[in-house]
């Protein structure tokens, strides 16, 4: 399946570009996607923590990704 990943804030500098398309096997959870991300982009281990949104909503770690999902990497926010 194809997943489009968007990178924001500091994570965009770490990824080097945004969006990035990932070709993944079925059955990948949000948690698993984090691991894939850090494996492919070792710089991400420098980020203390980041949330993941799927299709514009914060996602639980156990959520299964589906084909054509848009995943966003959300480092700690600082609006307001």
């Amino acid at each position, binding site marked *: 399946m194809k997943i489009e990943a968007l990178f924001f804030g500091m994570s965009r500098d770490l990824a080097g570009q945004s969006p990035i398309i990932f070709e993944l096997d079925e059955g990948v959870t949000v948690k698993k996607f984090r691991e894939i991300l850090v494996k492919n982009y070792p710089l991400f281990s420098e980020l203390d923590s980041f949330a993941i949104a799927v299709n514009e*909503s914060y996602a639980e770690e156990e959520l299964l990704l589906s084909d054509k999902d848009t995943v966003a990497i959300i480092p700690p926010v600082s609006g307001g």
Partner: protein
Amino acid sequence: MENKIFIKLIEGELSLGECYEYVQDDSCGGLALFVGTVRNNTKGKEVLKLQFSAYEPMAVKEMNLIALKAIDMFGIHKIAIHHAVGNLGIGEVPVIIAVSSAHREAAFKACQFAIDTLKETVPIWKKEFFEDG
């Protein structure tokens, strides 16, 4: 619910008057407003300007969720949540929250809830530019 909530995420100047006019209602006795402004320093370092960027569609959704929760939790009448993106200078306004309610206690609580939650959940990021680069 839609005519109780006014969300705005724009590049450009926010208007306190616009927020006030939106929430004011003859059935309400009190309005609480919060205005965030760009401070000239962060931890003692002089700030020149800020740049705000957002994951815009999700930021608007999250701002809307905050407004819905505030109405649900505090029984307020109307709420406006406006946020700016792009470059802002010292003293300029990245955020305004306005709440009207029959009773002031609820207006204050909802206004504070909204700004506290916005700072935790809404995908907006600020980048600070300092004197020394």
